[in-house]
């Protein structure tokens, strides 16, 4: 598909790799193209990119936290999370005009400026979340049942996380201080001083279980609020694109020759795009994407070891996967030579039953 399109057209395809981390994919792709064509991005554009990336992280993490609660039958927390999430959606809409696929990134910069009005909306959102997000945090992290469902479930030790290349919050949940925004800052992150969020800083110890991954994500929402504040305060004046005239951009991309990389920290882990441009060709020569779930899914078997089936949906969910058709499992009992397929619905039911059991106990 992409090979029949020029890089600017492919941006909109890259955006639709995933409807949740759409902007992460754009930024990774655009950075790869810029790397191949040696294009400098103005500082203001870098700040705006970081701004949208952080907003996206907030909405993705809140959505995930809500869905995790939903998985173990905590529907009120799910709805609370979704209600909170609408605020950041409003802000994204005010900033970019769209709720999900924003379409603000372009090669060499961004397409929409941060107006003072939009900055005010962002500030208002930061204040709102500082006020309201605590409720959600208390509801979930202090709740004994929620804790019982997530503690010591789906454990991934730090050593295994390294061996099996876990990324993003999955690795950080196992106590590894890895975060591309910290280890190899891109866009404006170099100025912002991001520290990886790891559970030992909050609870004093690392379990590497679902609870830790949960904690990492909610704490990252709070971290993102601080980053947003720094971005809005520190954004410099200047142009927002390297070259506002599209034909000129296309001409220079046509003249470019080489391979470019773009690696960024998406909400789920490292998102890598590699692009090859050939001189004299309008279109991409090739394009390779590695989304974080490819790496994170490898560690599932380790997390599943010695766990109940009722916990399986939660464990699957805990890496925040981007799949839709893999939600069934094959249960086999070697001793009696029996195997049976458990579907997603049965699995969810089992998972919720366990919560009820815990509540009854």
């Amino acid at each position, binding site marked *: *598909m992409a090979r*029949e399109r020029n890089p600017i057209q492919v941006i*909109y*395809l890259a*955006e*639709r*790799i*995933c*409807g*949740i981390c*759409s902007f992460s994919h754009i930024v990774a792709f655009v950075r790869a193209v810029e790397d191949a064509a040696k294009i400098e991005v103005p500082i203001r554009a870098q700040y705006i990119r970081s701004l949208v990336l952080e907003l996206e992280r907030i909405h993705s993490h809140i*959505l995930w936290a809500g869905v995790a609660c939903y998985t173990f039958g905590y529907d009120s927390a*799910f*709805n609370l999370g*979704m*209600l909170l999430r*609408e605020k950041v*959606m409003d802000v994204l809409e005010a900033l970019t005009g769209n*709720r*999900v*696929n924003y379409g603000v990134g372009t090669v060499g910069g961004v397409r929409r400026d941060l107006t003072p009005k939009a900055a005010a909306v962002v500030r208002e959102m930061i204040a709102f979340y500082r006020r309201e997000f605590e409720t959600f945090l208390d509801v979930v992290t202090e709740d004994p049942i929620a804790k019982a469902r997530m503690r010591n479930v789906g454990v991934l030790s730090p050593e295994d996380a390294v061996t099996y290349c876990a990324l993003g919050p999955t690795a950080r949940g196992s106590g590894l201080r890895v975060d591309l925004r910290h280890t190899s800052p891109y866009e404006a992150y170099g100025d912002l001083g991001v520290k990886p969020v790891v559970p030992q800083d909050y609870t004093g110890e690392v379990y590497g279980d679902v609870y830790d991954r949960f904690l990492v994500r909610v704490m990252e929402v709070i971290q993102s609020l601080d980053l947003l504040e720094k971005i809005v305060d520190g954004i410099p004046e200047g142009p927002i694109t390297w070259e506002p005239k599209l034909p000129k951009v296309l001409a220079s991309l046509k003249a470019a020759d080489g391979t470019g990389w773009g690696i960024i920290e998406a909400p789920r882990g490292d998102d890598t795009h590699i692009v090859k441009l050939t001189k004299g060709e309008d279109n991409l020569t090739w394009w390779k994407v590695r989304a974080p779930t490819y790496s994170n899914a490898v560690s599932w078997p380790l997390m599943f070891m010695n766990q109940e089936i009722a916990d399986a949906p939660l464990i699957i969910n805990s890496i925040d996967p*981007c799949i*839709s058709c893999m939600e069934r499992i094959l249960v086999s009992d070697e001793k009696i030579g029996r195997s049976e397929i458990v579907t997603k*619905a049965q699995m969810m039911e089992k998972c919720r039953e366990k919560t009820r059991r815990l509540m009854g106990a």
Partner: protein
Amino acid sequence: MKMTRVLEILPKSLWVFHCNSGSCNGCDIEIVATITPRYDIERFGMKLVGSPRHADALLVTGPVTKYMTDRLRRIYAQVPDPKVVIVVGNCGASGDVFFKSYSLDGPVDNIIPVDVYVHGCPPRPEAIIEGAAKAVLLLEKKREELLKAGASR
């Protein structure tokens, strides 16, 4: 169409089965937003059900990948009559950015008949609610036709 009419003619709550035929997730997220507190389509009695056999309406997102074609047909066949098909999102309606991809059999109307298209990439939750309202009207028409043709209730 007046939205108030919808409530007048609704004989029963609209139950919807959602089939993702290879979408980018954007539309699915907006559907989730539609059923959660801000937009809360459930206050009209519409809800997502877990089996096509319980559904009145089939809601399809995504441009229908080759792998999903057969499954989509089977799901469609399992929805009892009268039924409506709602396509949410541009990619189900026309292919959108996935147009001309080698792995597509879609858009959806290549495979099953579609009654309501909701455009946008992704559409806003308000648009999805409007689509559902249109589906209710259509469903009612189909029900009457079936009754006229001699179907029992």
